[in-house]
């Protein structure tokens, strides 16, 4: 079974983060929230693996 990757896995992290923030440019908070939801579902579909998705859902529950 594949494991959820929680070590750095994106080459050019600053570049990705900038693109992500820019995607929200000019959106109202409600539109931004909706955008995030769509993005989340697209990424989840790409991952596909049910175990990984469950592990990610749990990992995000952990708060500081």
């Amino acid at each position, binding site marked *: 079974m594949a494991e959820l*990757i*929680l*070590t*750095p*896995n*994106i080459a050019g*992290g*600053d570049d990705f*983060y*900038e693109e*992500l*923030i820019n995607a*929200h*440019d000019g*959106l109202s*908070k409600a539109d*931004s*929230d909706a955008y*995030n939801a769509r993005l989340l579902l697209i990424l989840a579909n790409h991952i596909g693996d049910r175990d990984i998705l469950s592990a990610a859902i749990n*990992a995000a529950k*952990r*708060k*500081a």
Partner: protein
Amino acid sequence: MFDDRYTLAYRLYPYERHADQDKDTPVRHPVVVMGGGPIGIATAVDLGQQGIPVVVLDDHEGVGMGSRAICFAKRCLEIADRYGAAKPMVEKGVVWNIGKVFHKDGQVFDFNLLPEEGHEFPAFINMQQPYFESFMIERAFELQKQGAPIQIRGKNRVDNVVVKDDHVVIEVMTPDGPYTLEADWLIGADGASSPLRTMLGYDFTGKVFQDSFLIADIKMKNDNFPTERWFWFEPSHGSGASTLLHKQPDDVWRVDFQIGWDIDRKEEMKEENIRRRLDAFLGDDVEYEMVWSSIYTFQCKRMESFRHGPVLFAGDAAHQVSPFGARGANSGMQDVDNLGWKLGMVINGQAPESLLDSYNSERVHGAEENILNSTRSTDFITPKSEMSHLLRNAVLELSEHYEFARPLVNSGRLSVPCVYDGSSLNSADALIGGPARTRPGAPCPDAPLADGFLLPKLGGQFTLLAINAEAPEALTEDGITANVLSLNSSDDKTGALAARYLGEAKSAVYLIRPDQHVAARREAYDENLFRAALKRATGKE
């Protein structure tokens, strides 16, 4: 009337009447530098070392007060070493490697710059800007005593400049009244608000950030804070939306509070109000003395072109970044490093004037890189929308538990030298298996040799660096000589030279520019190909 615009830390070149002021016709100089800050003085030292006469016009008589720039990067020190000024800087400066990032009050993570072994200079030193400037000026004076044609004229304020086809006419104001000078070349190193840029009407465009930062430099004896860079996002002391703490020499600490856009500057600058923030941050029982404070806002902007005929801009006058990442003074020094040898060769008739266009393209490339990095840091530190803030805090929360989020935390991407990829001065990389870090366009990394370090043996002139390879004693092409530095494995006890310059290759010959950037490399010496590379690197192709 000739009043100072700011208080001096050191009065080093008091106004003296110069013979130029009594001439009926204006005296023509090869190079005039406008501005006596770190970039202007470094330019004078670079040209002076080459024997090129240079006149610096400064509207003040020395070094301004205030710590201002405090982080000086390795490449900046290597350049200062080429100018003979780096040793006292390293002696005075505070070396640091550890950074810690906090969110609210909890530590999110720490990082170590992990400086690579085998370099003469540390990754960073912290030092108040007046020290940096003073060491550079002392070096200029030392060169003057040895006969270098450097003049620094205090209280010489440039009031007007007229640009002609092949020279400029400069109206200068002094305490004794005005006089006129001419120069074949004028360097604008007159800072972020560059009067020269304004006088000539050149644009300066980019992004202005809507936030203010309060710097409070304080002196305290405090063993609770080590020599590390500490950065808080949303600290609970409430004195700022972010806070930075960083050590300087003389027991001085830089404290930097992010205080928002809509503020009453006068009110915020009152000592009692600054102390209120500091006390909330440090605790009521901590004793300190206030050394210097300032409120700044910032912008990421640059001129479209750093060259306008005989006028060239360098440092903050040409480009401005936010302070996160220490990319201001450090990139200005790279401008000087790039410009000095090119201007020298053009003035000496060794290279065509078009070589100076490569100063523009290479340093615009550098400025773009610095602006990109510092804009990203700023967007992370001062998120501009609710969602941007939410995502930023999600990164911080995740990075406490999950390693993957840490590279996304951006409290400043520290200055690294620019690689001039794609420059017209580069020859195509012909070293198969050669390390990427020393590809054409890259600055040479230092390496320990049997008798000292590599970098001091390079620079100032073109060098052919031959490692385990045959090479002649020197190569001269069209009036320009590249000296040869021959090294082999016995010079390389640590293996650093091989790792940095050979990679998988058995041997290598590098053509290295006077600013210690690689122009060409291949496995073996080939006279015709290196002649062509030398021509290309001097703008003759």
